[in-house]
């Protein structure tokens, strides 16, 4: 299992390097990396430090967040179909962020934006868990998630529709599909504290999730405080998804696909899957963000589109596999 972590870490490192040197400016790789550390007075330094670097950091942090949050959700719900986006957390966070921006709260004080997104995410998760029950059958959970997603999405559209700003109405595309284009270090400082907090909280769930393999009763008898576990899960997920959505919009499928792919490699252990999914998620999002720049550089291809294009076929493959097992 540690070999898996080493491989994933190496992959993340390589992809981070690639993410730093690929871009429209098309500068030689060596010069690009050097400009990160040494200010050579050319515009390349500006490009590297203010455009490429924050983008790479965010792809790494947000990918790790979504991966770990997805693994935590699946581990707690004992359901491999759980995904933070599927249960409406991203949509609620987006609503919180949009409200903060349009009411001016985001401009009023620093961290107003990610905190508003966090609040939206918490409310969304609480609502879904209340609707579906803490151990809802997959169908009730997914239905509750659809309700919350649709509601949050509709309200977001409404807010943007009523905005006095002529560009606001088309923003809905961003909040539905996500993008990391031209993020600055300001966005990094905005999101990173909450992401760090959320990851730290989620990482404490290892023992509890492992014990939950035996079911809630047995887990409780093994000494796990299920109430506290659920609270930690909710707050941790809301924090990472809230901060990620506030900065990058809704990015789906990472939290669903990455734990699925890595589960066989960790012996299906939900606790071990947490950090593995974090690394896997970081790798996936870095790769997607590189693809966005390479495939259609002149068009503003959305990150969420790429992750969906990867995720949908994977889902098809899963259905296929399940059908073969049933037959």
């Amino acid at each position: 299992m540690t070999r898996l972590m080493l491989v994933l870490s190496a992959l993340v490192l390589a992809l981070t390097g690639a993410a730093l040197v690929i871009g429209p400016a098309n500068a030689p790789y060596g010069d690009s990396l050097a400009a990160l550390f040494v200010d050579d007075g050319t515009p390349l330094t500006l490009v590297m430090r203010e455009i490429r670097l924050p983008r790479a950091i965010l792809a790494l942090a947000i990918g790790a967040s979504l991966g770990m949050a997805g693994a935590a959700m699946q581990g707690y719900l004992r359901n491999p179909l759980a995904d933070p986006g599927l249960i409406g957390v991203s949509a609620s966070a987006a609503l919180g962020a949009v409200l903060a921006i349009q009411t001016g709260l985001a401009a009023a004080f620093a961290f107003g934006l990610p905190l508003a997104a966090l609040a939206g995410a918490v409310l969304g998760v609480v609502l879904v868990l209340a609707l579906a029950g803490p151990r809802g059958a997959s169908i009730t959970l997914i239905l509750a998630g659809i309700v919350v997603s649709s509601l949050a999405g509709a309200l977001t559209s409404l807010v943007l529709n009523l905005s006095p700003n002529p560009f606001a109405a088309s923003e809905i595309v961003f909040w539905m599909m996500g993008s990391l284009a031209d993020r600055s270090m300001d966005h990094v400082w905005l999101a990173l504290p909450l992401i760090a907090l959320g990851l730290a909280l989620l990482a404490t769930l290892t023992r509890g999730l492992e014990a939950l393999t035996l079911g809630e009763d047995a887990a409780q008898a093994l000494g796990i405080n299920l109430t506290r576990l659920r609270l930690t899960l909710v707050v941790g997920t809301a924090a990472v998804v809230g901060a990620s959505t506030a900065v990058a919009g809704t990015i789906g499928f990472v939290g669903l696909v990455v734990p699925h792919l890595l589960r066989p490699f960790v012996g299906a252990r939900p606790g071990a899957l947490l950090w593995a999914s974090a690394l896997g998620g970081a790798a996936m999002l870095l790769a997607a963000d590189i693809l966005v720049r390479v495939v259609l550089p002149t068009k503003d291809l959305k990150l969420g589109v790429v992750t969906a294009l990867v995720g949908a076929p994977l889902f098809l493959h899963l259905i296929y596999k399940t059908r073969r097992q049933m037959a």
Partner: protein
Amino acid sequence: MRNSRVIALALGAVLATAPAGAQDGADPGVPAAPPERVVSMNLCTDQLAMMLADDDQLHSVSYLSQQARGSALVEQARQYVPNRALAEEIYLMDPDLVIAGSFSDRTTLDMLRRLDVPVAVFEPAGNLSDIRDRVRRMGAVLHREEAADRMVARFEARLAELSAQAPPEGARPSAALYSANGWSSGGKTLPGQIVTAAGFDLVADDFGLAWGGFLPLELLAMSDPDAVITGQPYPADSRAEEILDHPVVAHLKRDSMRGIVSDQDWSCGTPLVLDAIARLSDARLAASGAGR
């Protein structure tokens, strides 16, 4: 199979060119007698109408002309009744001519025509020579041809004067127009021509965006322009305009020529663009005087 496809293509071509054809013939918007109660429902037609109309000829302009954000003639506009470009409201004003832009709501214009109100539609000016055409046509529509001719003459004289101040090819500083969503306008657009008339070379042209297009922030940074020209922000926030607050843009603006923001004079194709060109040109001279 093949024949019907050819016919379909031919039909499509005819239909596509039909509106253009209608414009070239007798101008449907010019009334027979001088109009006495004109309503303008588009910001840019408002401006031109206000500059050319006779006393008491113009009754109403759109509410946008009365807002400082986009209108260069706010004070003048406040003398008129504001309208919200809605058919019912305009019909009740009992106009004998309505002037609209080609992007005005088509259903509203169709409704007015159905109510037998004469409508004259103006395309937006796409470049400096379009401005002359628009002034002349507005003069024709309002039966103020002489005033229009005088305006065109003044326009051409002042434009020539300003162009003479521009440095020769090769000695011109570079400028980048940058607006929401990373849009950069090039030399074939009106904002682009304002900038080139003031003596700059456009960064967008270097990247083949003569008609305008998306310019990645990295390329803007690498081109290191002498002047970065952004617009005034709209009220409330939008993600589209966020890029204008990016540290890279702020950095470029800090090191470039000062005081260059596109404002109300840029928003319409009227002779007022000359004021914009003059200000840009002054900024350029001031900066070059400081040894840049």
